[in-house]
């Protein structure tokens, strides 16, 4: 009986917590059951989820990516320079925006692949290898922009942060697309299976002919790509890009979402859906506290408590096996 309870908690604990939170809010938070509340929460959580999807894949291989926040800053620094014509003047605004997005995302993808290369080729610990860009990345972003705040008003670009399709914010759609894509990759694709095998037992994977090096480089490249997208969304919302602030602390928010979502931090198992639920739970806790007049600083403490609780539940679930 106790084992079944533990198993249930491990599998559905976060989902149950999210349900309870919603119930609680319906009771105590004024105007909770409105479309606006839903929109506010989803738009705020979207960038975290987009980054956390990549983090889920990285963690499934037994790694970690600390560089995502800095990569967001780099994407955020590069894109405005292109569409504002600071590098070369481009006549057509649509071409300029498309090129800006492409340049930003390609850059962060390559930097992500570089992380993977360090880890796979030179067997550097992921936490150390990605620390390089965690530190240097933000510096690079500041050098690119000379430390200046870039302010812009380009609706064609800001569509990804402020626009809506059928009433749904575009970044929420982006978030759902990436979640769905990652779920599908893990379930159905060769890459997904091989990725889980590398995380579950790297030696066995290599002996089965899997190129563990290629898998790792790809997974960090994906994480870099998603960080780039998230960086673009953030500056689009803000109508400004500050290399000091874009993506600050994002690596920890993403890791927290992954942990609360019930992913094994040691690798070999991955639930992207869990990550989504984890991110939503953390977001809703913060919202609940703010909406009820608790200051943001106190909300951080509660966030930490939730992470501890989630990890504790995981441990109990594993001990019961």
């Amino acid at each position, binding site marked *: 009986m106790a084992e079944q309870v533990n198993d249930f908690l491990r599998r559905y604990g976060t989902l149950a917590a999210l349900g309870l939170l919603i119930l609680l809010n319906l009771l105590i938070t004024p105007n909770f059951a409105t479309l606006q509340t839903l929109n506010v929460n989803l738009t705020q959580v979207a960038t975290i989820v987009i980054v956390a999807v990549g983090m889920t894949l990285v963690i499934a291989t037994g790694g970690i990516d600390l560089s995502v926040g800095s990569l967001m800053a780099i994407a955020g620094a590069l894109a405005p320079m292109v569409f504002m014509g600071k590098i070369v003047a481009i006549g057509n605004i649509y071409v300029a925006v498309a090129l800006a997005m492409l340049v930003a995302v390609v850059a962060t993808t390559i930097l992500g692949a570089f992380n993977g290369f360090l880890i796979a080729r030179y067997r550097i610990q992921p936490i150390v290898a990605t620390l390089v860009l965690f530190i240097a990345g933000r510096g690079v972003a500041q050098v690119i922009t000379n430390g200046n705040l870039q302010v812009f008003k380009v609706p064609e670009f800001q569509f990804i942060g402020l626009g809506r399709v059928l009433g749904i914010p575009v970044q929420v759609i982006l978030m759902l697309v990436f979640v769905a894509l990652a779920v599908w990759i893990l379930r159905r694709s060769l890459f997904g299976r091989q990725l*889980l095998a590398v995380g*579950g037992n790297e030696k*066995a994977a290599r*002996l089965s002919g899997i190129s563990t090096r290629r898998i790792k480089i790809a997974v960090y490249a994906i994480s870099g790509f998603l960080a780039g997208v998230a960086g673009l969304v953030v500056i689009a919302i803000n109508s400004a890009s500050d290399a000091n602030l874009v993506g600050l602390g994002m690596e920890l928010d993403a890791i927290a979402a992954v942990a609360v979502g019930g992913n094994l931090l040691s690798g070999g198992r991955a639930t992207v859906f869990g990550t989504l639920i984890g991110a939503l739970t953390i977001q809703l806790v913060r919202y609940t506290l703010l909406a009820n007049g608790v200051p943001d600083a106190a909300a951080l403490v509660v966030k930490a408590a939730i992470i501890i609780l989630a990890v504790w539940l995981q441990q109990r679930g594993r001990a019961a096996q």
Partner: protein
Amino acid sequence: MTTPLLSMQNISKHFGGTPALTEASLTVDAGEVHALIGQNGAGKSTLIKILTGYYTKDSGRTRYQGDDFTPASPKAAQAAGISTIYQEVNLVPMLSVTENICLGREQRRFGLLDWHAMQVEATQLLARFGIAIDMTRPVGSYSTATQQMIAIARAIGFSARLVIMDEPTSSLDERETEVLFQVIRGLKSDGVSVIFVSHRLDELYAVCDRVTIMRDGRTVKTGSMAEVDKLELVSTMLGRDVARSAGRTTGFGAPAHAAGAVVLSVQGLSNGHSVKTVSLDVRQGEIAGLAGLLGSGRTETARMIFGIDPATAGKMTIAGAAHRPRQPADAIAAGLGFCTEDRKVEGIVPDMSVADNMMLALMPALSRSGIVDEARQREIVAGFIQKLGIKCTGPGQKIRELSGGNQQKVLLARWLAMSPRLLILDEPTRGIDVGAKDEIQRLIRELADQGLAVLMISSELEEVIEGADSVFVLRDGHSVVHLTAEQRSESAVLAAMAEGDAHG
């Protein structure tokens, strides 16, 4: 009649709805070496874990040194003088030998650690095992066998009254096993009792006084080793009369037809240190045995053939074509498969399903533009589960929940699915219970009869002599002799392993 040191009577234990132990009993006298045997799942480990405080029993009575004994935790059992040595080495690789031995019972002086006293104590302990090594080097830099001896020394260091050894010899070579036996005899003369769990029957006869045989969670027989012969031991353990051809104790049958053309040929292979000059041939439809003591270079040879480690000299050909693998993927492409000796570390992906584990190597071939053909995969997996008789609740069950024998079958299927030319099996039946062992040996013979070339490494002489159609013996990294089916015999293999001269 003196009271026994340990008496466990009518012990029962359930996990959920399934009984793990039903009225099991175990009695160990002071200064006795007691063999505890049974197939995997017979209840040996559950019984031991109740004794050592990992589990609590549902019912029954345990008396230890004359008193009722219900340890609340492994620590409590250890404090009472019960030490356990597991199959896997429980040491901290980065710490020094001394630190490992004294871990958890450091000696202090003025509130600081007294390194000198600990060094002296640890050295004395190891001296009892005839081991003299640098105590300041990290444990991880020593061989598995040495680590195992250090682990044993550490356990016995806790002024033990009762030492439980769970397959302690699985990573030791024959000389080290002999040293271990001397230690066990020494313990015995000091009045310490030993519970000895092993799948190697010869060892039980070499060192044990009495035996308790378990089956399906019950104690089915207890007796003096001198009164139970090998066949009775095995048949009691399996609960049936084992039908065997005369003189055979393994499941290999005779080959159905003569061997065909040479599939793999290795000439003068070397890695510069543990493998010096190894030469061998494996033919289609035959099982070639690779014998030798631990450290003779068997596994290292296999790893070079499979492209895991680089060779520094020598020539390899597969079906006449040069074979120079730079990574396992190259060897797989050349039609090779390799079941490693350590299933847990290098074989299974524990959290993945039986199906995903089985399809790990084949999956790229089953995919079109990166998407796995699930229907085709289901069909292949179901086929192998049925063909190899893999016991699982279904293809979706996690592989770590399977018994050792069934895990091994899944790994065999992983390679068979690739339709390989040559399968390298490193200790294919290690740590597998007797019934499943028989089945796997029979399966290997069947595969060879169907035309597969098999290179089999085994530490069990019976397996090599009865199973292999041609035996290559290695000694200190050299091929010393090649025995054909007519020449192979226990004495010939033993002589070559011990004192064979290097040739070609």
